[in-house]
């Protein structure tokens, strides 16, 4: 199953990735971090098709999807 990686140092909580995800595999997390941002988190990664739209539309290069292949699956 694909895995979501978010770099808290770069992510500014704009949540465009969540908006762009065609299968809503990711969702805003409940709490805000020290900088006041709400980061995306996994909702149900079984729905993730590996389309990489979240990576493509990220304004801050803060997100990455680790596919099965990456994990040597």
């Amino acid at each position, binding site marked *: 199953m694909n895995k979501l990686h978010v770099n808290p140092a770069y992510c500014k909580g*704009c949540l465009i990735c969540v*908006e762009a995800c065609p299968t809503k595999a990711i969702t805003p997390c409940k709490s805000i971090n020290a900088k006041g941002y709400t980061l995306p988190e996994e909702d149900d990664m079984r729905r993730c098709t590996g389309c990489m739209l979240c990576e493509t539309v990220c*304004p*801050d290069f803060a997100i990455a999807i680790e596919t099965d292949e990456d994990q040597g699956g």
Partner: protein
Amino acid sequence: MKKHPMLKYLKEEAPAGPRLPLIMCPGCGAGQVLNYALHAVDTLIREDGLRKEDFVFISGVGCSSRLASHYLNFDSGWTLHGRALAVATGALLANPGLKVIVLTGDGDAAAIGGNHFIHACRRNLNMTILCINNGLYGMTGGQVAPTTPIGRTTTTTPYGNVEEEFDLCRLAQTAGAAYVARWSTAHPHQTIKTIIKGIRKKGTAFVEILSQCPVHLKTAPAEMFRDLKKNTVPLKKAGKSEAKGRIPVGVFCDIDKPDWVTRYQEIIGRLERVESTHE
């Protein structure tokens, strides 16, 4: 921790300390345009055998242009407000082989840079102009721009804008650019394909990318991203009723004509032939 695939093209670390995150506000479209540009460059390096050192990013001043300041693992110039296109012209005269990508904004290109904009298109120099159009001046706090819709209030049109806005693509097309297209940050794949086409294209490629400014338009980035899809319509359907009030996106023109350097090379060629006959 897997890293974003395009981070390899950015300078995360440098002697004076980390350079990321980008200085842009949360959800700013400019960062997305950089992402799309790097995806295009990445494809060209893989498919066309181009090398990283073949590319140079040149930007003016404003949010759009801040991207080429010190984040890029490429040759780049963060130049004067409105003058990126003139700087790019000089670079191409010195080394026509460079793949020049100009990062500019609606104010940078069509207000202070308007004169250089129409001349760069008229000359059909071999550059790809990425114009990030957010319809206002972001860096200075949300003033009106030549692309601000009539009637809209901004910090310098507190009672509503009394001026009509430019259609940047019609302007570029009329001025003679060989390839002109408009997309938005909500059309990632089309934008990336168009940037690839633009860089491969001989002559001036003008790509307008409608972009969101969440801070000054006081709207959530995700909502603006959604609106950009809703408020645009394919160019083919521009005349139809459903297109009313929506901005046409797509390729405005794609014509083949020799670029400036090719025409100039003919002169040099002629002079070389004349010279060789003298010896």
